[in-house]
C-alpha cells in the first residue's frame, strides 16, 4: 500500500492540492470595471487602520474609521477645519445673520437658516447634487423607524426646499451649532437617486457602496483586508485631488502598523498615542502631525453620592462628598511628572473645562502641594491613627462612621492604551502618599458608559473615582456643559452628570448660555469655570494631542480634533 512511488505520489498530490488552494484563494471583488491601474504610473498612498469601517456612514456606529473614509467620498454642507473655522463644502457660502442667511425671531426665540448650494457639484455618475439630496438626507435621518438621532435634531421644526439649489431650515430655538448640522465629521449629504429610503438611513446599501461627490471613488473593498479608492475625475475642485489612489489597509496590531510606517509600506497611521509619537521622533521617513488645539481632557470624576447610589444629597459619598477631600486629592497629583514621564511632555496641563478657543477662561492653576493636601485631610477629620498608611475617619465632616477607611475603587478604561493605564497606576501611588488608598480596576469603556439599566458603571453610580478623557465636539460647549454639570442631567439616563453635582448657581448660568451673543456666552462660561474650580466635582489633569503619523513624502497633512485627518485629503501632494 505504501510503496515509495505511492508515497511520492501522495506527497505530490498534497503539494498540488496546497498550490491549487493558493491559486484559487479569495480575490478582492472589484466594484467597478475600470482597468486596473499599475502602481508605477500613478501616485498612491496607504492608510493603515486597525479595523474595518462598519460603513461610510458614521451615524451607524461612529468608530472614527467610518468618518475617515466618509471624508474621501462624501461632502456635507459645511465642515470645520483644525482651528475651529467652519468652511463651506456643498454650500456656496455660509449662512450668517450678516448675509441674511440666518433670520432670528427674537420674540419667539426661533430662527431660520437658508442654505444656498454650489451648482457645479455632481455625483460620480454625472447627476448634479441638489437641494433634493439634502432634503432626502434629512428625511432619511428623521425617519421614525430607520432613522437616527443626531445632535440638534429636536431643535429643527421643518426643512423646506426653496429652489433646485437652496433650502431653508426652521429652528424652534436659537441653535448655536446650526452650521455643521448637515456637515462636520459625521453627517454627509446622500444621493437621493441612488440610496434606497426603504432600506433606511442606517442600513442602506449605499452606505457601503457609496456614490461619490468627494475627491475619491471607492474602487474595491475586501472586508477586513483593504479598500481601494481612485481619484474622482468629476471632483468639483479638479484637478484636485493630487493623489491618484488611496489604499486603506486593515492592520489590527499596533506594533505591526508602526513597523509598516517605518518601512515605508504605510503612509498614514491614524490616532497614534504619545508612546508611538515619541518612538517616531527623529525618524526621516515618518513624521507626526498634531492637532493645533486639543479636545480630549483627561480628568478624574468624583462620585459625590455613595457608591451604588445616585443621590448626592440623600446618600452623600462617605469620603468624596467633602470638598476639602476633593481639593486634597487635586493637590496630591503631580501632573507635570505624569506628563514628562508618561506623555514625554506631549500633553498639556489644563485646569478648566474652557481651555480652547473661542472660550478660554483664566482660572488660577491649582498647585501641586503634598503637605497642603495632607493638612487639608487632617483638618477635615481624616487621620491615619493606626499607622497603616491609610487614613481613617476621626470626626470627619462627611458623616462617615468613625474609623471608616479612606479606601476607594479607581477605574479607567483600556481602549485608550498604555499611557492611561500607566497614568492610573501612578496616580494611585501619588494618592497613597497622602494616605488615600485607591484600588485600581480597568473596565471596558462600553460598560463604564452604558445606561444604568444595563449596569453602566457611571450612570448607575457604581464607582468612587474614575479617570478618562472627555471633551466637547466642534466649537460650541453649551450642550456638553448642560449634560455634564446641570442638575437635570444628574438623573440616570437624562445626562452625563455622573458626579451627581448639584449647584443651582451653575444651573442658572447654563440656562444663560443658550444665546447667539458671543460676548455674553464667554462671560457665562467663565463664571461657570470659576464655580467648578471651587466645587471640584472633577479634577482636570491635561489634554493629550490628537496625533497622526504620516510618511514624510506627503505634504499638506494637518491633524485635527474637529475632524478625521482626511478632512483635506484633496489638498495633499506627494513629494
Amino acid at each position, binding site marked *: 500500500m505504501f510503496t515509495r512511488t505511492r508515497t511520492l505520489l501522495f506527497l505530490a498530490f498534497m503539494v498540488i492540492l496546497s498550490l491549487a488552494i493558493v491559486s484559487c484563494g479569495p480575490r478582492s471583488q472589484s466594484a467597478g470595471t475600470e482597468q486596473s491601474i499599475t502602481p508605477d504610473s500613478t501616485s498612491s498612498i496607504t492608510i493603515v487602520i486597525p479595523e474595518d469601517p462598519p460603513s461610510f456612514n458614521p451615524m451607524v456606529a461612529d468608530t472614527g474609521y467610518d468618518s475617515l473614509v466618509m471624508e474621501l467620498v462624501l461632502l456635507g454642507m459645511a465642515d470645520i477645519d483644525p482651528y475651529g473655522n467652519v468652511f463651506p463644502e456643498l454650500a456656496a457660502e455660509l449662512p450668517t445673520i450678516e448675509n441674511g442667511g440666518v433670520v432670528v425671531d427674537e420674540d419667539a426665540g426661533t430662527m431660520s437658516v437658508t442654505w444656498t448650494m454650489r451648482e457645479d457639484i455632481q455625483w460620480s455618475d454625472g447627476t448634479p447634487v441638489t437641494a433634493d439630496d439634502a432634503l432626502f438626507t434629512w428625511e432619511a435621518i428623521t425617519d421614525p423607524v430607520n432613522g437616527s438621532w443626531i445632535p440638534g435634531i429636536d431643535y429643527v421644526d421643518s426643512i423646506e426646499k426653496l429652489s433646485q439649489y437652496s433650502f431653508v431650515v426652521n429652528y424652534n430655538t436659537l441653535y448655536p451649532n446650526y452650521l455643521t448640522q448637515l456637515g462636520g465629521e459625521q453627517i454627509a449629504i446622500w444621493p437621493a437617486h441612488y440610496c434606497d429610503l426603504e432600506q433606511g438611513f442606517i442600513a442602506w446599501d449605499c452606505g457601503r457602496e457609496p456614490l461619490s461627490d468627494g475627491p475619491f471613488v471607492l474602487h474595491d473593498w475586501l472586508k477586513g483586508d483593504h479598500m481601494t479608492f481612485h481619484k474622482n475625475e468629476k471632483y468639483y475642485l479638479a484637478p484636485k485631488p493630487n493623489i491618484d489612489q488611496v489604499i486603506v489597509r486593515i492592520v489590527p496590531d499596533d506594533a505591526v502598523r508602526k513597523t509598516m510606517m517605518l518601512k515605508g509600506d504605510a503612509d498614514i497611521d491614524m490616532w497614534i498615542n504619545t508612546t508611538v509619537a515619541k518612538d517616531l521622533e527623529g525618524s526621516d521617513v515618518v513624521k507626526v502631525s498634531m492637532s493645533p488645539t486639543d479636545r480630549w481632557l483627561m480628568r478624574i470624576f468624583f462620585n459625590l453620592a455613595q457608591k451604588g447610589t445616585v443621590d448626592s444629597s440623600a446618600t452623600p459619598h462617605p469620603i468624596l462628598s467633602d470638598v476639602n477631600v476633593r481639593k486634597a486629592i487635586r493637590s496630591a497629583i503631580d501632573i507635570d511628572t505624569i506628563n514628562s*514621564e508618561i506623555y514625554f511632555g506631549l500633553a498639556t496641563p489644563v485646569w478648566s473645562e474652557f481651555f480652547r478657543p473661542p472660550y478660554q477662561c483664566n482660572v488660577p492653576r491649582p498647585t501641586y502641594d503634598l503637605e497642603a493636601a495632607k493638612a487639608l485631610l487632617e483638618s477635615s477629620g481624616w487621620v491615619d491613627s493606626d499607622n497603616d498608611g491609610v487614613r481613617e475617619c476621626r470626626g470627619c465632616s462627611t458623616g462617615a462612621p468613625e474609623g471608616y477607611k479612606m479606601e476607594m475603587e479607581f477605574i479607567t478604561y483600556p481602549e485608550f492604551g498604555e499611557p492611561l493605564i500607566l497614568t492610573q497606576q501612578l496616580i494611585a501611588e501619588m494618592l497613597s502618599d497622602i494616605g488615600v488608598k485607591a484600588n485600581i480596576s480597568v473596565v471596558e469603556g462600553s460598560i463604564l458608559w452604558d445606561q444604568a439599566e444595563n449596569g453602566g458603571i457611571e450612570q448607575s453610580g457604581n464607582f468612587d473615582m474614575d479617570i478618562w478623557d472627555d471633551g466637547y465636539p466642534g466649537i460650541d460647549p453649551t450642550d456638553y456643559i448642560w449634560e455634564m454639570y446641570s442638575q437635570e442631567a444628574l438623573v440616570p439616563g437624562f445626562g452625563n452628570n455622573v458626579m451627581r453635582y448639584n449647584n443651582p448657581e451653575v444651573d442658572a448660568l447654563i440656562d444663560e448660555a443658550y444665546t447667539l451673543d458671543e460676548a455674553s456666552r464667554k462671560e457665562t462660561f467663565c463664571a461657570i469655570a470659576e464655580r467648578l474650580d471651587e466645587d471640584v466635582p472633577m479634577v482636570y489633569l491635561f489634554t493629550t494631542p490628537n496625533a497622526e503619523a504620516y510618511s514624510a513624502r506627503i505634504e499638506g497633512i494637518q491633524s485635527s480634533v474637529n475632524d478625521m485627518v482626511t478632512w483635506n485629503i484633496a489638498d495633499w501632494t506627494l513629494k
Partner: protein
Amino acid sequence: MIPQPSEFSIAIWKRFTRHRGAIIGMVIISLIILLCIFAFLSPFNPEKSSLAEKLLPPSPAHLLGTDALGRDLLTRILYGGRISLTVGGIAVAISLLIGVPIGALAGYYGGKIDSILMRITDAFLSLPSFLVLILLAAILREVELPIFQRNSVLTISLVIGALSWMTFARLVRAAFLTLREMDYVSASRALGASDRRIMLGHILPNGIGVVIVEATLQLGYAIIQEAGLSFLNFGIQQPTPSWGNLIYAAQSHFTKYPWLAIFPGIAIFLTIVSVNYIGDGLRDAFDPYKVMEKVGEWT
C-alpha cells in the same frame, strides 16, 4: 491482587526517573516555582514605579531590564509567574472537580445516567472552545460578585477550567467502565461496600494515572490560554502582572525594547515544555508495558 499504594508509587517514581526529559522538566519547573515563591526576596516592588529608571535594558542591577514605569522586569515576571501558575493550577482543579465526578458517575452507573452525562459532555465538546473562552472572559470580567471581582485571577481560571473538563470526564469514564467489572471491585461490592466507597476507594486510585498525566498537560494548556486571552486584552488586567499581560503590555514596545516581550515569552515556553515532558514521563511511568522493553536505550 493490586500492589500496595506505597510500592506502587515507588515503582512509578522509579520508572519516571528513568525518563530524562521528564527529570530535566521537573528540575526546571521546580526552579521556576521556587523562584516565584521566593519572589518577595527581590529588592524591587513589582507594582511600585521608579520613574528614574524606566525602560532600562538588562544590566547587573536589573537582570532582565525594567518596564515603562521603571519596575524591575525579573521581579514582575516572578510575580507574574505566581499568577500564571495559579491560573493554571486553579483551572485544572476546576476541570478536575467537574470532569472526574461526571466521568466517574457515568462510568460506574452506566445506563441513563451515563447517556445524560455524556450528552452534556458532548455538548461542551461541540463548542468552539477558544471562541467561547473569549466570550465568557468578556462577560465575566464585567461582573462584580464578592469573589469574582473584575478581571480577577479566579474569574479567568474558572472560565478556562469550565471549558476543559471534558477530557477528564471521558478518561475517567473509560477507566471506570473497565475497572468496575474487575474481580476486586465485584468482591468489595459483594462484601457490602457502598458505591461511594467503591468509587473513591477502589476504582479511582487505579484510574488515577491517566488523570494525572492529563492534568499535567492541561496545566500547560491553561497557561497558554491565559496568555492568549491577555494578548486579546481579555485576560487578567494590570497592574497585577501575569505572563500573558506582560507580553500584552510589551506589545507597544516590541521593536524598541524587545526584552520586555521576549523574557515573559521564554518563561511561558520553558514552563510548558517542562510540563509537557513531565506529562510524557508520567505517561510512560503509569504505563509500564510500553516502556519496560526499551528503557535505557534513550541516550
